[in-house]
């Protein structure tokens, strides 16, 4: 069952230089160290909802909201960004089969991000930044918190610089060739993200940092929210697209299949550039001060950004089917059982896909503003995003790590048996927890609230609260299995034999398929995106800036 993903007879000559492999590993290690803490705090949050408040026994963590701030910021800002940095540097170098331009710039990126992360860690652990992931002003954090996050964002811009410089160098060396798929995906991810990050860049550098330092008298709360969500929704595609790189271009190889449709894969990636950005108002449906018309436009565009994911579902499933049938699968669905489920890297990512289908559907519910009235800011929302970023993204990154970390270190995976259990525990834990959360949300329980201590806790919330807690315990167990395996691989595992050191790269099903030029160019997509953002955001932001109200001073009620 195991080791079926080893390619036969495929020339796989290129290995990135040692310094680049170390760079990727450094990023990934920082990311997973933070995920470990984030996952452990999740355990306490689940229990809190079931009425078991254990925060008094924790060092440094004073209350639920400080823990929740760390959980959110570590899991979806520090872990994701660091893992993505490490993974994409690897993907660009390996995809283009040439050194990065340059590795030293990569190390500068790493240290810049690391300093940022340390500032974020310090302010969070000292309870000086318990403002949650959204940092909604006038709720105020320590200036070093905003500065730290800004440094992390600047680090991601350097990632784009390195990725593009390497790609342009490759283009000069390989005129007339298409950018190899994984490197293409990495560029799209970073281009989309850099455009999207302009919102928080203006928010943090232009307003929150000077305001927290006392250089500005106050902030404009609605403008801050609007700038935040200009970035805050597309950031989910920054997390998701690296997972798609694996689903499209790597998992098919791991199951013995081929990429079903290269042109549509490229098109799906490119569509994420213009469609990821103009959707942020679906987080602000209930905000007074944003017009209904623009909210409706953002609602329809949110449906539109579902399209590239729908295309992904078909292409990825068809690519898997090629593999399942090549392995002797018969009938309509017989190929599913023939997939190498015993390979933890594969099973983690297949299960991530299954959970993501539920996450996608619950996302459509959130995006429908009529249903949003019922579920807005309720537990339904964490029920949704634990299926997306907590499953499609986190479980996929774990699955990738099962081959990538051994590849980067040259060591064997510490325990295949632990790896085999881990994705299934995550899968069932997540099904139970997210069902509990969604149910609780439909019963009106607010999210981001210490419900176990709430003065208004209702008896009808008890069964789903317990589901949430039990699911959380399973997820924590799964997380621990993963981390023991990860750190065991890093520190206590023997060297691997050379044939285990393969990078799974899927070939297209149709080798000589023609491809229109616009599927290998970024500029037209960037221009289109800028125009769409100007139309969908311009008038609202212009109005908010002309009505700028800096009278709201900061408050730190935590």
């Amino acid at each position, binding site marked *: 069952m195991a080791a079926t993903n080893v390619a036969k007879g495929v020339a796989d000559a290129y290995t990135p230089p040692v310094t680049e492999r170390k760079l990727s590993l450094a990023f990934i290690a920082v990311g997973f160290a933070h995920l470990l803490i984030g996952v452990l705090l999740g355990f306490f949050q689940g229990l809190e909802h079931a009425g078991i408040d254990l925060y008094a026994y924790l060092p440094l963590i004073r209350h639920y909201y400080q823990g929740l701030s760390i959980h959110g910021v570590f899991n979806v800002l520090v872990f994701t960004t660091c893992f993505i940095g490490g993974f994409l540097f690897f993907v660009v170098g390996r995809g283009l089969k040439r050194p990065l331009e340059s590795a030293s710039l990569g190390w500068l990126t790493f240290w810049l991000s690391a300093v940022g992360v340390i500032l974020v860690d310090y302010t969070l652990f000292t309870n000086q930044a318990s403002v949650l992931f959204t940092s909604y002003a006038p709720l105020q954090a320590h200036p070093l918190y905003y500065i730290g996050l800004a440094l992390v964002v600047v680090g991601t811009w350097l990632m784009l610089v390195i990725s593009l410089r390497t790609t342009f160098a490759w283009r000069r060396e390989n005129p007339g060739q298409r950018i190899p798929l994984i490197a293409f995906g990495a560029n799209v991810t970073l281009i989309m993200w850099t455009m999207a990050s302009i919102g928080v860049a203006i928010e943090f550098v232009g307003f929150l940092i000077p305001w927290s330092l006392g250089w500005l008298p106050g902030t404009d709360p609605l403008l801050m929210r609007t700038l935040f969500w200009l970035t805050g929704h597309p950031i989910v595609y920054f997390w998701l697209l690296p997972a798609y790189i694996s689903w499209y271009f790597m998992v098919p190889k791991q199951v013995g299949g081929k990429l079903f449709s290269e042109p549509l894969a490229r098109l799906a990636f490119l569509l994420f550039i213009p469609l990821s950005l103009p959707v942020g108002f679906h987080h602000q449906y209930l905000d007074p001060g944003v017009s209904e018309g623009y909210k409706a436009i953002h609602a329809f565009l949110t449906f539109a950004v579902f399209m590239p994911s729908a295309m992904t579902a078909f292409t990825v499933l068809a690519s898997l089917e090629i593999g399942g049938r090549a392995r002797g699968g018969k009938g309509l669905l017989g190929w599913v059982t023939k997939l190498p489920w015993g390979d933890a890297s594969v099973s983690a990512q297949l299960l991530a896909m299954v959970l993501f289908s539920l996450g996608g559907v619950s996302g459509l519910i959130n995006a429908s503003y009529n249903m949003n*009235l019922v579920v807005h800011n309720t537990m339904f929302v964490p029920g949704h995003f634990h299926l997306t970023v907590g499953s499609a993204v986190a479980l996929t990154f774990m699955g990738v790590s099962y081959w990538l970390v051994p590849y980067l270190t040259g060591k064997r995976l510490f325990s295949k048996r632990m790896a085999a259990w881990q994705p299934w525990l995550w899968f069932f834990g997540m099904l139970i927890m997210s069902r509990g959360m969604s149910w609780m949300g439909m019963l009106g329980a607010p999210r981001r*609230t210490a419900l176990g201590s709430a003065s208004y806790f*209702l008896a009808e919330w008890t069964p789903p609260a317990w589901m949430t807690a039990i699911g959380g315990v399973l997820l924590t167990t799964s997380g621990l299995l993963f981390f023991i395996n990860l750190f065991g691989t890093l520190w206590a595992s023997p060297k691997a034999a050379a044939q285990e050191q393969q990078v799974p790269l899927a070939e297209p099903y149709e080798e000589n398929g023609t491809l229109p030029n616009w599927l290998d160019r970024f500029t037209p997509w960037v221009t289109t995106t800028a125009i769409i953002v100007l139309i969908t955001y311009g008038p609202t932001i212009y109005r908010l800036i002309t009505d700028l109200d800096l009278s709201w001073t900061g408050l730190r009620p935590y």
Partner: protein
Amino acid sequence: MHIDRYERMWITISGGLLIVFAIALGFSSVVLGVRLPGLSDQLLPTAAAGPHDINEGWVRQLAPGRYEVNMRARVWNFNPGEIRGPAGSTVTFYIHSEDIIHGFKIKDTTVSLMIIPGQTAKATYTFTEPGEYLFVCHDYCGAGHHFMSGRVIVEEL
């Protein structure tokens, strides 16, 4: 560019489904009257001075069965925190924040609003069933956020 026949079908069906969803959304707004908060400049309660200063929390009857509530939100309470009225009453809420962002959700109703400093949040709802309706702050507002709640008490006629 070659696209497989089944893939073309899948894309058509997915796109069609999303268009159906969008139409349903439009239907809910236009025909069923589901409305979201919009621009808030002209939403202030009708009386803005005297006993009905918008800087105070108050409930007042406009006509039999019609009420207007001016609510103040701050860490960590709503003012007024308890509102009473007979079943069948239509209540319009105007809510302002005095400090940071809060939320306002009345359980088992369609009333759900963000309370953003500098903006007026408005919602109208007709309470047909008697009973106690819990309302809570549903956006994080600090260490006492989970105590920020109140009740609408709808009495039998």
